[in-house]
């Protein structure tokens, strides 16, 4: 199975993860790597969870079973933790640390997990955890909405996916709005650099 790489992306509706999947799709096309994806985004606009599965390489399946993700990319810390069922001991996890507490917390129907404990748990169970505040980095890059590009930078830095930073930056130029290409590229670089220091 070594030639196949399985990536799960989880996010909250509106965080821009579908664009990041689309950029990765374009990057894979540029790299000449077969890629199949599937998405469950039933009620994304109503604040629900959006989950994308991306399978790179010569697989036919478009979904990823429990315990079989090589990489888990989480746009929101509690959602990263919730998706831990997709991971095994060899999985590399990348997570944003900036929380978006679900509404159930506000109405007292749940307690948001402690961010430090959350990182300890993920780190103990998986091969590697890269944790970064993608919102702060996106603001530094010039637009808070470029969180998805920051996380893509961190993802590519791991070197697990069969696409290079150049492929992704080229895909950013074709798949994101012209006015945001510079900010998005800067955000990607910031994510990449931050991950390389962890």
């Amino acid at each position: 199975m070594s030639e196949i790489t399985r990536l799960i992306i989880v996010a909250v509706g509106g965080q821009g993860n579908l664009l990041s999947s689309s950029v990765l799709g374009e990057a894979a096309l540029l790299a000449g790597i077969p890629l199949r994806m599937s998405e469950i985004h039933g009620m994304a606009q109503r604040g629900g969870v959006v989950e994308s599965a991306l399978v790179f390489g010569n697989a036919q399946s478009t979904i990823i079973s429990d315990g079989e993700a090589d990489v888990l990319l989480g746009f929101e810390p509690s959602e990263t933790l919730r998706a831990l069922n997709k991971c095994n001991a060899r999985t590399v996890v990348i997570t944003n640390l900036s929380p978006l507490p679900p509404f159930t917390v506000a109405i007292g129907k749940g307690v948001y997990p402690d961010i430090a404990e959350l990182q300890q748990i993920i780190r103990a169970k998986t091969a590697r955890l890269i944790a970064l505040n993608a919102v702060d980095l996106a603001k530094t890059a010039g637009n808070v909405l470029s969180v998805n590009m920051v996380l893509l930078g961190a993802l590519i830095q791991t070197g697990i996916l069969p696409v290079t930073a150049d492929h992704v930056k080229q895909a950013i130029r074709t798949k994101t709005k012209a006015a945001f290409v510079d900010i998005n590229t800067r955000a990607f670089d910031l994510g990449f650099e931050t991950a390389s220091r962890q």
Partner: protein
Amino acid sequence: MHKLLTDQPGATMVLLGNEAITRGAIEAGVAVATTYPGTPSSEISLNFFQISQESSLYFEYSTNEKVALEVAAATANSGVRSMCVMKHVGLNVAADALMTLAYVGVKGGLVIITADDPFMFSSQNEQDNRYYGKLSGLPILEPSSVEEAKNMIPYAFELSESLQEPVIFRTTTRINHSTAPVTLGAIRDRVCKGDFTKDPFNYVTVPAVSRKLHVKLLANLDKAAELSETSPYNFVSGSGVWGIVCNGVSFAYLCDALRDLGIQDKVKLLRIGFSHPMPSKLIKGFLGSCEKVLVVEEGEPYMEEAVKAFAQEAGLTLPINGKSQQDAGSTFGKDLFWRPGFSRLYEFNPRLVRQVVAAYFGVPCKVEPMVDLSNVPEIPQRPPNLCAGCSHRATFYEVKKAAEGLSTIYPTDIGCYTLGFLPPLSMGDFLICMGSSAGTSCGFSKVTDKKVVSFIGDSTFFHSGIPGLVNAVFNNHNFTLVILDNGITAMTGHQPNPGVDMGLMNLQGYGQISIEAVVRALGVPHIAIIQPYKVKKSIETLREAFNFKGVSVVIAQEMCTLYAKGFKKTKSRSYYISDKCQNHRDCISQLACPAFFLDAEKVKIDPVMCSGCAVCAQVCPENAILPIKA
């Protein structure tokens, strides 16, 4: 130009399954497409809607699936290639038309898309619509991948025309919502005009005609069975004495599983893409060359039953299994990571398929252990929620206030407002299908002494709510129907419905039907209109309706806040919680708008999310919620 109109045969495009289906229809020269939107099929129609605005393709959002099929039945019987798109439960609504259309047949190709939803990602059941093939006598095609879905559509049209019958094209969510590279084919010229040749003794289905047409249908079914035997979509791959019969996405999971298990040379696969009628000779030949067979199919044991029946006819006694685990022998169904064997429940996944295949054929299967989740703290749920500023939330609050002191039942219906059943609103007690709010209200109010107040959206009202309301007026039932008119079909992604002002989309040539006028014309004895953002007045109006003995209708009119964002140049002023707040938290505990959040145990409003509806400001007992000054 719409990307799906790209005329570059041989070019590769990364497409969503639903885009691939639309592209397949474009390549087949489809000229008419009709639909009622429903996940997971909605993007097929959305693409047709967009394409129709820049080409000669005729597309319509029909009132419901039955009407959509009737429109397409007529265009196809005028010789024009037509497609009718719906989700699986939509075919139940269209079934009356379908069953006899099978007798009548078609002249131009007609392909009916039914998008099944194993696991019910966004549906009320996970029925397996392959049985509609058996029930109606129509052919069924099922793709296994995004690419194949595109390629199979032109084949479906040709099959329809060669049999002169509609063809049912069945997908599942994982085909509709997967993305993969697709190679474009040539686009056949679109022929938009046809003609209808009168032939009442073959078209008007009185009993004498239908007795003759049923004979014709059975003859067509025999012809379809012959085509199924040689269809390129029913094929055998690999070699070995172990056999697997599969369909749909399971084929992809099996290809991966056989490679991962290293048994590609031991197992041969029979992939069924033309699944009604099943190819009996092909299957009997396949079974005859196998020692042991596993049937891999999501949903019901549709193929398994057929395969076993064929084995019996052929006098074959080899073990055949799929979902009937009880007679599966000692190794099958044990020591599996997840579920024992295949189930009729939910969807499959690669790991499940790999493990069941390994267990059935007795080969080793390395299982990567999933991380131990035992010490992971409970993570707060993130259920979908009505949007910040959604007028449905205001209406639910007002109904609850107006009904204080009454013992109530709240039948609900299908749309965003179904989410109102979740706490803290908790407005929704019963739901079975589109339009059931009005019909079930008749029953509940007849045999209970409770006050029945039911909810239905504008699109669902037009779809199938009107007959229930007619019934209520005629039989003099006693309940209040609240019609939540937000001016659009919101849940499935803002599609038009007969009450929508199409001028807002800059589209001309449409009518617009007033819900109020319909309700008045039905003779509903008590009718009122509320503007849900006006809380006090709405509660008073609702109370009057609840006190009325007989059928009362309250129409709550306010545009979907998400849809309205596309038209408003400037956003309404956001609200904030001032120092007057005494932390009663009525705003959170009774409205639960997602714009609220807690900060150091005090309620705050996210100014970006706040739509400025001001409903919370009217609910706050301290009048502490105020607009942010410009």
